[in-house]
Each structure stands twice: as C-alpha cells, then as structure tokens.
C-alpha cells in the first residue's frame, strides 16, 4: 500500500444539474472509510464550475470538492471521463476511489481501474476497514453467495457501490468544503463518437425512487396484464417494474427492470406479482421496507424474502386487492 495515497475520493453523478441519489450514498460510505483510514473525503464532479452542486457536495460531507469545469463533460463521455478521473487520481492520490454501480459507473469504473492499474470490486453492498485493510462485500453467483474481497497492489483501491445499499449521507447545509478546480487533461482525441442520446419520456413515474413499486414477472403472461399492474401502481402513487423475464418478453422496458443487471430499488412498498424470487431479481428489491409477494407456488423462493405473501392466482388476487386498496385509500 503506497503510503502517499490517502483519503477517499468519490465520483459524483449529476443529472440535469442535480446530484443523483447515489452520490449521497457514496458520500456516506466514503465518510466512514475516510474516518477509519485517516484522510480527507474528496468528491469529483465534472462539467460545471462552483455552484449549487459543489455546495451540495459539501453539505453532504465532502471535505474537498474537485471540479473539472469543461462544459463538454456535462454529460457522461466514456473516454473523456476516464481521462479526467485517472488524472484526478494521479493528482490527488486517494487511497480509495468510490463510484456508483450505475450505468455510468459500470462503464467508467473498469476503464479507470485498468488505466491506473488499480484493483476494482464492483457492486459492493458494504465496504469497511478491517485491521487497516479495506474489505468489500459483494454478491456473486447472481446474488446467491456473498463474497468478501481484499485489494492488492500499490496505489488506489476502486469500488463501485450498489445503489440503495447504504443510507445517504445527512445534509448539513452550512458545512464548507475546499473547492479545487482541476484542468481537463489534454487527452487523446476520443475514438468512439457519441452520435445522439435518445431518452424516451418516461410514461409515468420511474421506479428508481418511487415510494411504491408494483412489479410483474413471468407469471403475468402478456403485455396487457401489465396494464393491471399500472392501475394498482397509479392508485398507490407508485411505478411499475418487472423482472428480466418480463424485459426479455418485451412487456416492460429495461428502464423498468429490477434486479442484478437492472435497477436496485428500495421503495416503501414493493409488490411482486407472479415473480418466483430468483436471486438476480431479489438483489434489486430485497431492500424494500415492506415486500409483498403474490405467487401460485407456496414454495417459491420469494416468500423467503417477503414480509407478506398470498399464494394464489394473481389474476384473481390482484383485482380484489386493488379494489380494497381503493376503498381504504379514498
């Protein structure tokens, strides 16, 4: 472990000018690690100068905020971001670098890790210091097994953190941080050309931070049946999600996919309809405060994770459930 590497650096994610929820979670974990390892907690944000985002980072606990103000970095670009993060690591020499295991983090972290020859553990649900050494806990085998990993080699140690695995850092509005502006490194010209980005206007609420998620699996059978879930979700003020089987069948978009290779959600209420409970799916929803399962098979694994369960045909259970909810809520 190179002795001149100290502190923790997190890579912030910004969407439409605001910090995404993963950033607050990274700062919470980063704070604990920085305190245990000794050293400052830094946050890197790209694309803008000092402003709302930087003061928010400070409020959430960053000791130092590094900004790379190049406006071309406002949206994620793999090669440019890799150059920028690698350069920041070289300049600031953190002992630990954290990114979110988001669609950006999944792309960026491995590139950076190989660029700076650092170990990377992805999708960690916990990070801790054990006897001075960093230990990460991450799900493997589709979530059926938990592995504890250790880093080797000199230099920084990289990890991506699973969204919603940690509580977000609390805000202290008057907390101050040092703002350091870094120069965008004179990078090589990008080889991959980004031609366009197409984001479908989300039809209705998205599952990412919805308080209630109603999720359907293989057992739904058709795309039309997802409309029934939509009805319930709308009533409860939530969003519709689904398993990988539902995405593969074209009943939902990948933005609605909950699971290991989909989204991790932590709603107040998660209602799993016709979902068996395979680990890859549970990885995405088991953090829900209340998990409800409706399935015809009493031995389905999902009942091991659910707080409430009904064994029965969803086509009969759900309409009655929806009707009663409507009655209770109005």
């Amino acid at each position, binding site marked *: 472990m190179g002795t001149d590497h100290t502190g923790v650096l997190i890579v912030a994610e910004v969407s439409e000018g605001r910090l995404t929820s993963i950033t607050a979670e990274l700062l919470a974990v980063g704070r604990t690690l920085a305190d245990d390892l000794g050293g400052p907690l830094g946050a890197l944000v790209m694309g803008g100068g000092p402003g709302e985002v930087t003061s928010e980072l400070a409020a959430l606990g960053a000791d130092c905020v590094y900004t790379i103000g190049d406006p071309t970095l406002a949206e994620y670009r793999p090669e440019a971001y890799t150059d920028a993060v690698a350069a920041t690591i070289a300049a600031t020499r953190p002992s630990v670098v954290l990114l979110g295991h988001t669609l950006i983090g999944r792309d960026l972290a491995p590139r950076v890790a190989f660029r700076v020859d650092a170990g990377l553990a992805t999708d960690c649900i916990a990070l801790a210091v054990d006897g001075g050494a960093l230990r990460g806990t991450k799900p493997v085998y589709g979530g059926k097994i938990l592995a504890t990993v250790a880093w080797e080699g000199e230099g920084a140690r990289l990890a991506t953190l699973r969204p919603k695995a940690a509580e977000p850092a609390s805000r202290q509005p008057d907390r101050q941080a040092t703002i350091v502006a870094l120069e965008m490194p004179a990078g090589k010209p990008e080889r991959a050309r980004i031609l366009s980005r197409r984001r479908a206007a989300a039809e209705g609420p998205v599952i990412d931070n919805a308080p209630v998620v109603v999720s359907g699996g*293989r057992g739904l059978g058709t795309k039309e049946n997802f409309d029934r879930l939509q009805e319930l979700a709308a009533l409860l003020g939530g969003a519709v999600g689904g398993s990988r*089987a539902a995405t593969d069948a074209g009943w939902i978009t990948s933005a609605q996919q909950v699971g290991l290779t989909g989204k991790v959600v932590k709603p107040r209420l998660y209602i799993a309809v016709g979902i*068996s*409970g*395979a680990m890859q799916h549970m990885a995405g929803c088991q953090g829900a405060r209340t998990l409800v399962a409706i399935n*015809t*098979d*009493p*031995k*389905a*694994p999902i009942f091991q994770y659910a707080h409430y369960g009904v064994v029965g*045909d969803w086509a009969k259970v759900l309409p009655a459930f929806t009707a009663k909810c409507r009655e209770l809520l109005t």
Partner: protein
Amino acid sequence: METLLLRGALLVAVFIGAARIARQVKVWRQGRATQVDGSLVTRVARAVLDVASHRRIRRNPVSGLIHACLFFTVAFLGPMMVWEHVLELPVALGGLSQIYRSLLDIAGVLLLTGVVAAAIRRFVVRPPRLYDANRHDVLALTLLALLAVSGFAVAAIPFVPLLAIGGPSPGWEMPGAAAMTLALAAAAGAGLLNADPEALAPLLAGAYWTHAGTTIVLVAWLPFGVLRHVVYSFLNIVLVRGGPRAALAPIDFEAESPLLGTRTLDELTWKQRLDLDACTRCGRCHAVCPATAAGRPLSPKRFIQSLRQAMATRDGDTAIVPDVVSEDILWSCTTCGACAEACPVDIAVVDKIVDARRHLVMSESRVPDTAQTALRSLEERGHPWSGTTHTRTSWAEGLGIPTLAEAPDAEYLLWVGCTGALVDRNVKATKALARVLQHAGVRFAILGADEPCTGDPARRLGSELLFQMMAQQTVGMLEQQGAKRIVTQCAHCYNTLANEYPKFGGTYEVTPHVTLLEELQRAGRLPMGSAGGPSVALHDACYLGRANGVFDPPREVLTGAGLALREMPRNRERSFCCGAGGGNAWQSGLPGGKINVLRAQEALDTGAQIVATECPFCLQMLEEGVVDVGGAGRLRPMDVSEVVAESLGLTTTTD
C-alpha cells in the same frame, strides 16, 4: 364380333390403367428408399379382411353404409359381368340361377342408392370434412350411376313391347329391371317412346354399349381420378408400417451424409409418397384433429392433399416449407395421432410433419421462439423448464425416498419426469403418487439429482440429434444403475422409454402409474374406496391411450376408489388431445384458438366434479383450460394419483 370388340376394348382399358399405375409407382420411387417388414401374404390377408369387414369405414355409420353400397355392389357386379359377358363363361347355378339374377339386380339398385346418397351427402349436406367436393366427384358418381341405370335398361327394354301387349314384366325380385320397365312403358304410353321392337333395338344396343362403355371407361380412368383409391389405398393398407404407433423412426447420424429430415418432396420415402396417393379425401382426419377444431392452420387432410398435389404437379426438389405448406401448419400439430386412428387407409401424418420439422430445426435452426428456449434449456441443463425454482429432488424432501443407488433391490424405479419434478402444479401430483405407493408398501426408488430428460420434447419438435444424444446418455446411465422395472407418471416418458429406447439399446419393463395403481388395488395393497365418491370424467392421454392401448386401468382405479365414473363424449381411442403434445406445451402465440379450452369445455359439459388426468401435461393444460372456460370451482382437474391419495386421506395442506 361384339365380344371381340368388348374384350379388345377392355384389354386396352386395363393396359391404360396399368400403365398409369406403373407411372405412379415410378413417381413414388423418386422418393427415398425404405424397408417394409413382415410377410407379404400376411399383409395382404390382413388388408383383405380389413376391407371386407369395412371395419374402420363403418365407424362413421352413414358414410360407412353409403360406401358399403358402392363398394360391395361393384365388387360383386364387376367380376360377374366380366365372367359372363367378356369371358362368356357359364354361370351354372341350376336352381339358384334366379336368385343369382335377382341378386345382380338388387346390387344394381343398392349401387344407385349409394350413388344418390353419396351425392346428397357430398353436395347437399356438405359435412365440413368434405369441404373440397368437386366436379371429379361428380364424374365418378355419374359414371357409377350410368352403370346402374344402363344395366337396368338392358334388362328392361326387351320387356317393353311385351308389356304393351299385356305380357309379363320382370318381377319385383328384380326391382331395378322392374322399375325401369315400368318407367319405359310409361314413357311409351306417353308417346315419348316407340314401343315397337324394331324401334327399340337401337335403344337396347345403345344401353348395352353405354353399359359396356362405362365399364371400360371406369377401368381405364380408375387410376387417373378420384377412384384411384381403390388401388392405392388398398396398397397402402397392405404396406402399412408396423411397430408401436407413437414411435418415430430414427435418423442414422453415422451414415455418410445423413438426411436431416425432409426438405423437399423427393426426400420423402416412397412409402410416404404412396401415403399421399392413398388419401381418399374422406376427411375423417380433419374431423378429429384438435388443431383443426381449434381453428389452427393445420388440417391433416389439407396437409396430405397439398403434398399430393405438389408431388403430382411440381418438381421433386420443391421445398415443402414454405412452398407447399407453411411453418405454422407444422408447428400446430400436437402429434396426438387422432388422424391416423381415424384414417381408414392407414395414412400416417405425424411422421411427415416431424420429418419436415427435423429439417427446419436441424438444418435451418428454425423453431418458434418459446420452443427455442425449451430446446436450448434441454441442450444446456437437461430439462425444458427454464426458469424453474424447483430441483429434481426438492419435491421429495421429507418423504424418505431412497435413490436407486441407495436401494438397488427396490421393486421399481419411479421415473419422475422433468415436469413432475420441476413444475409447480405437477409436483403436487408427484407427491401424491409417492404417498400412495408408500401407503401400498411398494418399495420404490428414484434417480434423484441424476434423473435426465428422456428427450421426448426434443424428438417431437424435430431436434433428432439432441434426442439421440440424450437417449444414449440415459440408456448408459440406466444400465450403470441397473434399472429394469420402471414406473412412469408421464405418458410421454412412458412412450419414449417403452417404445423408442429399445432402438438405442435400452429395453425396460415400463409400467404407467395408472396400471400399477390398478394392480395394487386388485392385489389388495390399496384399499378400495366406498361408493358414493364424487363424479369423475377421465381424460385419456393420447400417448397412453390411443398410442399404447391403456384404457381400462385408470377407469378401474377411479371406480375402485369409489368415484362415479362418467365418460367424455370423445374417449378411449377417440380421446381429444389436451393440446400440449408435439412441443406445443412450450409454444405460444400460434395463430388460431386454444385446444385445451375445447377439451376443458367438453369435460365441464359432462357435469363431473373432477376431470382426472394420467399425464402431467394434460393436467397443466386442463388446469388452464378449466379456468378459461369459467369452470374454476366447479370442475377440479386432478391426476389419478391425486384422486387416489385424496380418497385415502393422504394429501396434506402443505402440498
């Protein structure tokens, strides 16, 4: 002189007919070679008996009667006329001579009646299976009618002048001649006919030559038109393929360049091509096919006729799919075999469908999406139920059942089957069966984690190489484990293990679970139930019943358990498929309706409280079907083993 002309013309007609038949034989032989086993003499004898008894044609009573009228009369009249008028041999019957003459006449009347009835049936009543009645049918019927009428005329005309002067007329023991005589006399009386003997002479000659001429035309035309079935269908019955009905023929993959199914018409075997010409267009297959009933693209009659048409008019290297039939037609088939059961002339349909599937799957890797997932799952993890949360052993937890390795002296190996172990609904039935067998004190073992798939879904979908690889592995494993007596609870597992594995070196004593349960009841190892149990309708599984003749055991078991048995309208050999066979359990989104809904409705209409199944696929299909027709709560689909378990009080609430 006349006789010479007659003989000459008939000889020419026979020659023309024979030449046409010979040409058609050459067309069949453009196909691939194949073996026909067994003694020719036995085959011919069997065929003659079959035709003489009209055993299968009689199953449709009305059509059977009509055909009997047409067939037996011509079969009698033809040779007798040739004997008397062409060969001019005596008919020395002495005192019976009059009876003989009378019989000839009655035969003619029956022939004419048959023709008229056939015409009404085909062109007025129009049953759906005769959807393609056309002018060729009209021609055949007309020629036969002409034959009868001209025959009566020949017999009647000489009596007309006699009648005019008060002489005798043919008695009613010759009804045809008598009626014709009266008609002609009436015509003469009405001035439409000159009753003078000299004037009638040319009419008589005309009638005679019409009669002779029609015969000659019929003989020559026979192999050209719809009556060709007289020759080709009979030939097909003689050459029928033996062996277990639902066993498919393997491909020899170790041959030089193995043929991977049939892509073109010429890749059909000569026997398969004969099948096509044997088809009489009767449509009985069409009437019983579950796919046809559900409105799917497949009709066995249309399938065979499309191929026949293509064989007659198109090049041998025409691709069967898509140039003759569409893929959807192929995938609609559940391989239930009802078509072959109904066919009076032994035409096989399933073999051609599977051969065409084999080409699509093995050469072009084309299979409907959901079936593709099942096949990939079979290839990779040895079972078709991708996504199951069950394991091969999870159903057996807590039941204390040993593996065969642990209990090599067990009475039976219980072959659970992929579906029985891995699909929610079916696990319940498996547990029920295990409990019942334990209750009866049967010492049985399972293969547990080592149990593979028999490969049946792969074979039915056309993935023959995959099937053979699985079969060889399974046979090897069973040999290593020393399995000899196997009990199955799935009709498809049963058929494959009992009838198809012997070709891969695996011979076992395979018993379906319903048969074992019946034996146990008879032996007193399972108590009989007291009468007064609920009413139950049995759904005969295609692969146990029609394909393997297992009909009575499940019925005995159900009544033995104290239930009141009701029969479905379509039962036993005529059972209507649940819709899962032929890989259809894994197909969705095919055009047309759902087969299981039709069967579920039929079960519901019996008024029974339970519909009992003997195959896990039937159980799944009927569960869904009963819900779809609104029968949930009124009709319970249950496996026979579940019925027995419940009657013995063996099921628990956690099942």
